[in-house]
């Protein structure tokens, strides 16, 4: 009985300790950001591996998500004779929800796991301690550029996802199912508001970008420096950041659109 309570306490303390370490780590990253801006090449290098190389999966999934929305939306709306509103359905669901959320989930799987594995492997092969020996701060040299790159890339990727998704919906709705071209765009323009819908979607993706990259670099930096530890950290990155994205999405949606 005592041991159960003791384990519970140990678990709680461990969780809070990790949480605290995560925030101190975040503080160190943020103070390291001016140093990154001074060495722009590091950031560009990371933008390539985090952002540009995620572009393919984002564009392809965005297109397919848009096409599926077009098909499903059409099948539902045609029962009410409201297939003219297909553009609104596709655009609003992509702009408000699917764009930021799906892009973040894909980003966590594609780039977040790679970040964790890379940093974790650097730690377990003692490259990070090596840097410290040479009086190079690994947080400034390794972590902060990756964090900033992810933070900048995800909003861009989410925006691209949304735009490609709308084009996918257009392709299916207008191209294949024969919704009127003018009604598709004009209804969309009448119902989608720039500051309320599109900017809120962008704000969501900025928040997700922050959280996902933070989790990814922290898990990598904090991992147990063995091969098993790295693999666990990579798994945790994907699981925790997906959960964080979905949970935060509900909170943000409630704040932005929920009238709560």
């Amino acid at each position: 009985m005592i041991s159960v309570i003791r384990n519970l306490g140990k678990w709680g303390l461990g969780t809070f300790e990790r949480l605290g370490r995560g925030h101190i780590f975040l503080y160190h990253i943020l103070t390291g950001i001016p140093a990154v801006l001074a060495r722009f090449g590091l950031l560009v290098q990371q933008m390539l591996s985090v952002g540009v190389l995620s572009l393919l999966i984002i564009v392809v999934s965005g297109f397919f998500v848009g096409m599926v929305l077009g098909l499903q939306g059409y099948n539902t709306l045609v029962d009410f004779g409201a297939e003219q509103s297909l553009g609104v359905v596709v655009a609003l669901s992509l702009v408000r929800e699917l764009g930021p959320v799906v892009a973040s989930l894909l980003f966590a799987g594609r780039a977040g796991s790679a970040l964790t594995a890379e940093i974790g492997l650097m730690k377990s092969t003692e490259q990070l301690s090596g840097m410290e020996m040479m009086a190079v701060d690994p947080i400034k040299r390794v972590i902060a550029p990756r964090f900033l790159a992810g933070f900048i890339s995800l909003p861009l990727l989410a925006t691209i996802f949304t735009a490609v998704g709308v084009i996918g919906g257009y392709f299916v709705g207008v191209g294949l199912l024969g919704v009127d071209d003018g009604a598709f765009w004009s209804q969309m323009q009448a119902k989608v508001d720039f500051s309320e819908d599109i900017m809120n979607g962008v704000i969501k993706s900025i928040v997700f970008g922050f959280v996902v990259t933070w989790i990814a670099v922290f898990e990598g930096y904090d991992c147990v420096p063995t091969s098993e530890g790295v693999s666990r950290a990579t798994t945790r990155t994907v699981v925790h950041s997906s959960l964080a994205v979905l949970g935060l999405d509900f909170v943000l949606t409630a704040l932005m659109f929920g009238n709560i």
Partner: protein
Amino acid sequence: MHNSKTVEILVGLFVALGIAALFMLAMKVSNLSTFSGDNGYVIKARFENIGGLKVRSPVTVAGVRVGRISNIDFDNTTYEAVISMNIEGGYNTLPTDTSASIFTAGLLGEQYVALEPGGDEKYLQQGGEVRLTQSAIVLEQVIGQFLYSQAEGGDK
């Protein structure tokens, strides 16, 4: 590792693509291209019943959208709804005896305010009020009245 010039070009393209996507969303998907909120002016109207009118519902003249509802208020003394309409700056020749009605687009569509210009030579200014208003038609009331009159007719 890639050559640093290629890296920079690829990243530059990526950022440009992201900005282009945002631009496309702004211009093609949202109403930013058609709606300019800066130089518009606000006019008010009082209704007994606004039905399902909402903030951001369209305001039209002759079926053309000229603005949006910017605010809906309730007057505590007259028990009327006071709506503020933000009319785009280009449409500044609405006469002062313009009338406003609340209509529904289609049978179940959203409600909007239709303005009917009068013949006065003075124009509505910022803060002006539309005096002639016609309330929303509430479908339940119409059906109720219809059933009632049917029942009355059946008695004879």
